C-alpha cells in the first residue's frame, strides 16, 4: 500500500510539544489575565489539536479530499456557532416591545 510512514522520532517530538503546551496552558491559567486568558487558552488548544490532526492523524500527508472534508466540518461548526451567537449577542440591542 502506498502509505506515508512517519518516523517514530516525529511522533515523540510531537508528544513532547503537546506536553509542553499542556504545561504552558495550565501555567497561564493560574495567572490572572482577564480578557486575554480565554483567547490564549484557545490558541494553545488549537495548536495542540493541529499537531494531533496533522501528525498523529497523518492529515499533513493525506489527500486534499480528506483535508477539505475536515475543513468543511469545522467551517460549518463555526458557522453554526457564529450565527447563533449573532442572535444571542444582539438580542438586547433593541428593546423588546411590551417590556
Amino acid at each position, binding site marked *: *500500500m*502506498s*502509505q506515508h*510512514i*512517519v518516523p*517514530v522520532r516525529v*511522533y*515523540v517530538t*510531537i*508528544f513532547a510539544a*503537546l*506536553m509542553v503546551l*499542556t504545561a504552558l*496552558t*495550565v501555567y497561564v*491559567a*493560574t*495567572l*490572572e*489575565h482577564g480578557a486575554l*486568558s*480565554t483567547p490564549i*487558552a*484557545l490558541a*494553545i*488548544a488549537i495548536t*495542540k*489539536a493541529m499537531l*494531533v*490532526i496533522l*501528525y*498523529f*492523524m497523518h492529515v499533513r500527508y*493525506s*489527500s486534499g*479530499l*480528506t483535508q477539505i*472534508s*475536515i475543513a*468543511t*466540518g*469545522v467551517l*460549518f*461548526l463555526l458557522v*453554526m*456557532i457564529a450565527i*447563533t*451567537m449573532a442572535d*444571542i*449577542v444582539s438580542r438586547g440591542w433593541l428593546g423588546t416591545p411590551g417590556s
Partner: protein
Amino acid sequence: MATTEHVVAHQFDDAEQQHEASTLGMWLFLVTEILFFGGLFLLYVAYRVTYPEAFVDGSHHLDLRLGTINTVILIGSSLTMALGVHAAQVGRQRALVGFLLLTIVLGSAFLVIKGFEYAAKFEHGLVPGPGFALTGPLGPQVELFFCIYFAMTALHAIHMVIGVGVLAVIAMMASRGAFGPAYFTPVELMGLYWHFVDVVWIFLFPLLYLIGGR
C-alpha cells in the same frame, strides 16, 4: 504470512481503492462527530457568554489536578496509538500488540480517574437535578454549567468506552496476526477515532477546567 493477504471486497477494483474508500469513510464519520459534539460546544459558548461569572464559579469546583493528569494520560495514549499504527506499517507484530494494550491501559486509566471525579461531584451535590447543592444568586446558573460539564464529559467518556472496547477487539485480532504492512486498515481507522477523541478533550480541558484564573 497468509493472513496479511487480505481479500479485496467484490465492489472494489484493488486494495488501494479499498483502502482509500475506508479512510475517506472514517473521516466523513469523524466530520459527523465534529458536528455531534459541536451542538454541545454551541451550548457551551452561548451559556458562557451569557453567564460568565457562573461559569468561572463552576469551573473552580472542578479538580484541576485530576483534569491535568487526565490530559497527560490521554495525550500519552494518543502517542501509543500512533506508535501502534507505525508498528503495523513496518510489520512489527509484537510491538503492535504491545502498543495497543498500552493504549487500552491508558484509556482505562483516564476513565477510572474520570470516575473518581464524577464520584466527588456526586458527594458534593454538584450533579444537576433536584438535589443540586449550590444555592445563592448564581446557584441555578452554576447548575447550568454542570449540566454542560456533565453532558460534554459524559459524551466524551462514552466515546472512550466504545474506543477501549473496539481497541480490545483489534488487539485480539492483532495478536492473531491479522495485520501487517499490506493490510492494517482497522488499526489505522481505530487510530483516527482515538486521536479524534483526544482532540475533543484537548478543547474540553481548557474550556471546562481552566477558566477565570486558577
